[in-house]
């Protein structure tokens, strides 16, 4: 039997149960969100091996602050935004220089039909191109296309307006297609 899709109302009920110390409700939240959360934070952390620890800390924070959840966003995006803040702190502590492929800043906010088709026809390069994206670009694409999050939820997690999310996704796609082209051009014969 499939687990029913969480709804806003379910989320609120669960969180109010947790706020009065219901561990079974917390277990339900943990089992539903921890696996996705771990895959999500791996994209954020300089050291992905710390992902399990970060999930633990995030979930402990959920337990402590369950009463503060007001249901204005989905529970998933609320939890992810806690994880995001913790990831930023963790990265600050472990700050290091990262090297990513140089991607030009794109001024145009459109992607041509040819560029889109380049991405479709060269899907095999998409994964490699994703790895070369900047962290912020990789993150928004992951949230939008892997986690299937709505712009509003991504905005909450990224702490920015919805318009900024749309622009960032557009630029991320543009950068991704640029990198796909680079990978394709460098393919050995």
């Amino acid at each position: 039997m499939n687990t029913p899709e969480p709804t806003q109302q379910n989320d609120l009920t669960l969180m109010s149960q947790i706020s009065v110390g219901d561990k079974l409700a917390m277990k339900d939240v943990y089992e539903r969100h921890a696996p996705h959360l771990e895959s999500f934070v791996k994209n954020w952390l300089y050291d992905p091996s710390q992902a399990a620890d970060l999930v633990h800390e995030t979930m402990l924070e959920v337990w402590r602050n369950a009463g503060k959840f007001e249901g204005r966003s989905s529970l998933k995006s609320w939890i992810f935004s806690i994880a995001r803040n913790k990831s930023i702190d963790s990265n600050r502590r472990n700050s290091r220089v990262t090297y990513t492929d140089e991607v030009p800043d794109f001024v145009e906010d459109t992607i041509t039909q040819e560029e889109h088709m380049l991405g479709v026809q060269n899907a095999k390069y998409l994964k490699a191109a994703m790895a070369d994206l900047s962290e912020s670009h990789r993150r928004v694409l992951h949230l939008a296309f892997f986690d299937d999050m709505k712009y509003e939820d991504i905005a909450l997690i990224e702490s920015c307006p919805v318009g900024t999310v749309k622009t960032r996704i557009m630029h991320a796609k543009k950068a991704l297609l640029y990198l796909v082209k680079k990978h394709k051009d460098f393919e050995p014969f």
Partner: protein
Amino acid sequence: MTKENRDKLDIAAYIRGDISAEDEAVFEALIREDTDFAAEVAFQKTLRETLRSDAPPKQDTAFGWARLSKAIDEETPSSALPVPANDRGPRVKVWRYAAIALACVVFGQAYVIGSTHSDDKTDKYFMAGNIEVQSSTILKPANSARLSSITEFLSENNAMITMGPDEDGQYEISFQSLEACEITLKDLGKAGRNFEMTTGCEEK
């Protein structure tokens, strides 16, 4: 349809199947008529499929939950919490480990194997002998060991945590079979990971 109007369409929602039948019809008509739009939808579909094809296998949350449950218990006075009937919690594990310890003494098979190396850069683990069951053993990480290192170590050795941590910070780990346990323990002995193995798995 103007570009402005087209930009307002939520392609991601269409791909997720998260729109009404009426909107879906609008999308499909537009895909037929507008090759630019069709290319954009095709790209987003490809991107989603590619990312999702890379999804890690569904993880077992038992270990993470056991750890969280312990942390919750530690910071919440037990008198303040309702005790759900079907959540046995860590206290049950106390008698279980006591029984295991007794079994170890009775069968004379318990050893405490400790790290004799002193490489501070590597996490240290101690393993206390084979326990009565076919393919389980107890893992007691040193206080300085990181959880991520423990899970990495277990995953490399085809083992999984089935219980723990208990009040002493010990985990019960299990193997797929007795044979797997024996092979793994042998490998651990020569793995150069600050382990010294002097015991194996024995069928009860």
